[in-house]
């Protein structure tokens, strides 16, 4: 399910005091792809994604979710189906856990959208398995779990509603490396299951590894929409101007380019970067100065 944003503007307040947050946004969140939304704090990312499931209504323009059009005039009653189709995982979703057991917490969403207990339980169990929560935890209180486990339960709560699209706001923030990796795997699984995924992230290494399309926001406007391989070819100054980091392998490669190295393609990982460096150096001629040698590497 694609989401089309057409001439979207959004402001708080009215008249002289109106504060413009989004200005003339046009973009398509492609069906079955991972779209990353990046930009500095205050650039409008969070406001933008809240339009994807009609948590906010446009001040101007429209948002087309599947076949449903949302404008400033759309009635509250018509928004239910939009919200059922687009699941939203906020930052630190574990803060929204509330039920007395893990299973009940995950069942809440599907029940809220009209499933009976039996259906909701089946959906909840499936979602818990998908996020890797073992059955032994299902009857535990969510508040007895570790931070990483709570995050998974919260994710399961959204998955259990089986939305066509899912929006994640910094889903890996605060997780340890293993937790981050699992989460990125989950996003890829969702894509493989033909879900539409939208991801807000400050971590450009993740964006490069995962995204099909990157939307760069600045001052409430779209500054660029490109595939990551294209975007990160831009020069360093552009990223400074937009307060964005570069993925680490890319930043390092750009440094080396100032010293005579050349990269055929954007290095996507440490391994990729190392391979491209390897073939540019005559390693037989490389000797280690005494001050830098210290014996066997695997000591």
């Amino acid at each position: 399910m694609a989401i089309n944003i057409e001439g979207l503007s959004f402001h708080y307040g009215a008249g002289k005091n109106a504060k413009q947050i989004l200005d003339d946004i046009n973009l398509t969140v492609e069906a079955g792809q991972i779209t990353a939304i990046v930009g500095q704090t205050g650039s409008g990312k969070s406001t933008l994604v809240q339009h994807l499931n009609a948590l906010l209504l446009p001040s101007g323009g429209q948002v087309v979710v599947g076949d449903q059009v949302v404008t400033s005039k759309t009635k509250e009653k018509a928004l239910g189906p939009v919200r059922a189709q687009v699941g939203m995982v906020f930052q630190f979703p574990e803060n929204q856990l509330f039920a007395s057991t893990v299973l009940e917490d995950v069942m809440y969403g599907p029940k809220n959208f009209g499933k009976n207990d039996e259906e909701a339980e089946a959906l909840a169990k499936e979602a818990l398995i998908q996020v890797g929560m073992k059955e032994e935890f299902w009857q535990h209180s969510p508040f007895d779990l570790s931070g990483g486990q709570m995050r998974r339960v919260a994710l399961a709560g959204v998955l259990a509603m089986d939305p066509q699209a899912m929006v994640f706001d910094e889903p890996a923030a605060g997780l340890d490396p293993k937790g981050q990796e699992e989460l990125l795997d989950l996003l890829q699984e969702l894509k493989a299951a033909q879900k539409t995924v939208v991801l807000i992230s400050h971590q450009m290494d993740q964006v490069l590894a995962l995204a099909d399309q990157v939307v760069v926001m600045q001052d409430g406007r779209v500054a660029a929409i490109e595939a990551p391989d294209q975007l990160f070819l831009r020069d360093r100054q552009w990223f400074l101007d937009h307060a964005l980091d570069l993925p680490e392998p890319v930043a390092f490669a750009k440094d080396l380019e100032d010293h005579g190295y050349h990269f055929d393609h954007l290095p996507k990982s440490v391994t990729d970067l190392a391979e491209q460096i390897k073939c540019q150096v005559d390693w037989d001629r490389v000797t280690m100065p005494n001050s830098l040698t210290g014996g066997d590497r695997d000591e």
Partner: protein
Amino acid sequence: MTNAITINNLTYGYPDQDPLFHDFDLEVQEGQWLSIVGHNGSGKSTLAKLILGLLEANSGTISIFGQQLTIETLAEARAQVGMVFQNPDNQFVGATVADDVAFGLENRQVPSEEMPKMIEAVLQQVGMADFADREPHTLSGGQKQRVALASVLALKPKVIILDEATAMLDPAGKSAVLQTLKDLKNQYQDQLTLIVITHDMAEAALADRVVVINDGQLAFDQRPQDLFVQGQALKELGLDQPFESQLSQALPKAPNQYLTKQELAAWLSTLKD
């Protein structure tokens, strides 16, 4: 040198669970910048709560500057230890930034005529003096954490513990907080002991010493540069090696020691001459 914190034979477990810490020992010297790293659920934050007396050990002792933590000494011990938590929104009480800093001072019964000067001074230290009259909710995450740090500094603690204080911040906010920590350490030198709990290796790299906690055990206790070269071991502990160490190990040859990104790039550039 005096120990800021001494932990002996600590045993602690959450109710109805296996003990998380069993006979755990750790000494933190006064003036040290210590990083505690470990995967989610390794016991890092629990340890911080035990040091602050927010949790009570099942057995063993924790001493702050030589004084053992008990119900009687708790207030005195806490006066020496300040803490900044992960979520900047959970630690504000004041209507303005200045009010928020004042709250802690009021609790300490600092005379109100002395407060404005003290508040101004600590906000200056964290680079937030221009925001004194702002409402905390209008600040960015990084600014909020710097205000939280100012509120802690106002109480003149000898030890500051930061529990994943940059985990929720964007890159700009994070680097502003880390720069503030460096500035504070420069200013106070040995008068300030910093304990930074994190799983960000770039953050851990700033410390003099890194301890890795795994299932309540001390898995490593080293200088950051000595830890970072141990890729396999870190991986087994659910942690990442910093980018520069990963790259250096993926090359056919590289200096057999930890190099920062700049150092590694400089070394590689000599190979092209």
